[in-house]
């Protein structure tokens, strides 16, 4: 059981870091600001989500696990809001 949980963690965290890598590549390589923003928010969303998922079995207590999920939810909220605000600023400046 423990080995299976560890394997689950390793796979989830590896996928999470992959999304960060892909997001960073997109941030550096995509041609315009809106696509770069898209790449960045996907990395935040799925990258952090998968890493949190991988860490959940090792949280130790229910409260710690809930805190991890809350962190993910807060990052989602912050990411979505700032992406909207940046996108609007880009559209206004043309």
């Amino acid at each position, binding site marked *: 059981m423990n080995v299976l949980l560890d394997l689950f963690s390793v796979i989830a965290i590896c996928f999470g870091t992959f999304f960060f890598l892909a997001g960073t590549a997109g941030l550096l390589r995509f041609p315009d600001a809106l696509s770069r923003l898209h790449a960045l928010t996907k990395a935040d969303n799925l990258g952090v989500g998968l890493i949190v998922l991988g860490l959940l079995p090792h949280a130790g207590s229910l409260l710690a696990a809930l805190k991890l999920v809350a962190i993910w939810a*807060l990052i989602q*909220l912050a990411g979505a*809001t700032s992406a909207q605000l940046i996108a609007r600023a880009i559209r206004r400046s043309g």
Partner: protein
Amino acid sequence: MSILQILDIGLAGLVLAVAAWTVFARDAFAAVVGFVAYGLLLSLVWVRLFAVDVALTEAAIGSGVTGVLLIGAAGRLRKVEASRDDELPGASLRLFAAALCIFVTLVLAGVVLSLPDPGPTLAPEAARHLAETGLGNPITAVLLSYRSFDTMLEKVVLVLAVVGVWSLAADQYWGGAAGNPRGAEPDGTRALLAQVLPPLGILIGIHMVWVGADEPGGAFQGGAILAAMWMITMMAGLTEMPSIRSRLLRLVLVAGPAVFVAVGVAGVAFASGVFAYPTGFAKPLILFIEAFMTLSIAVTLPVLVAGPPKRLRQQ
């Protein structure tokens, strides 16, 4: 070399690189963004040094609130920034400033490197008397018991900063309010954030003050989170700054330092001296002071960010 050491060296290199980038950024706004990123990386450094209290303060105050203040300043300077190129200091003055900064850095590095090993420390003393304060977090014991006079003065400095900001008000706005009026900028995105986040943010802020007695956290960190919640609702146009004449506003601004001084002076009658706590009552008194300090900090920081009053006094 272990993986952690490699990560530490990478983190230190990143902090230096972001610091250099911030110094060399041409545009004030870009420099502020660099400074905020620098602050967040620095808080990771503090975590690696096992100073979680300092890391929280660095992230909340050093990076967060200072970042908002600097973004506001950069926004106000933007209009005049382009036309000011001819007023920039000359090459010789800038070289002199750079040389002075490098000299100070070298002296600091020399002092740090010449410290005896192991360094002189009061940590064992602080830990030994922890039980007398009833607290579990030695940082809170140092801040609010061993050197509470310093902490009280830090809060007074915040009130003085508000006085300084308000005194920049133009004559016709004296007695008015700072920032935008409620509903000035109806904005769906910011309004949604300002409605969803505060319930959770207020809970986290109070939690951080409460656990500060025994774990990393405290009045400053928790107060900064509460302050951020008010700032968010103000930026979304859902709330507005009260007039600087408001008695309630002024009362809350001075409540923290005033309660701190009152409890400190009461130490003459009820304990061994000024800023001493009576035996057995240290923890409740510290929590009492922290509650008022949190309130004052949560209001002082948004007042500083809002700046001097810009709206006419309402009759």
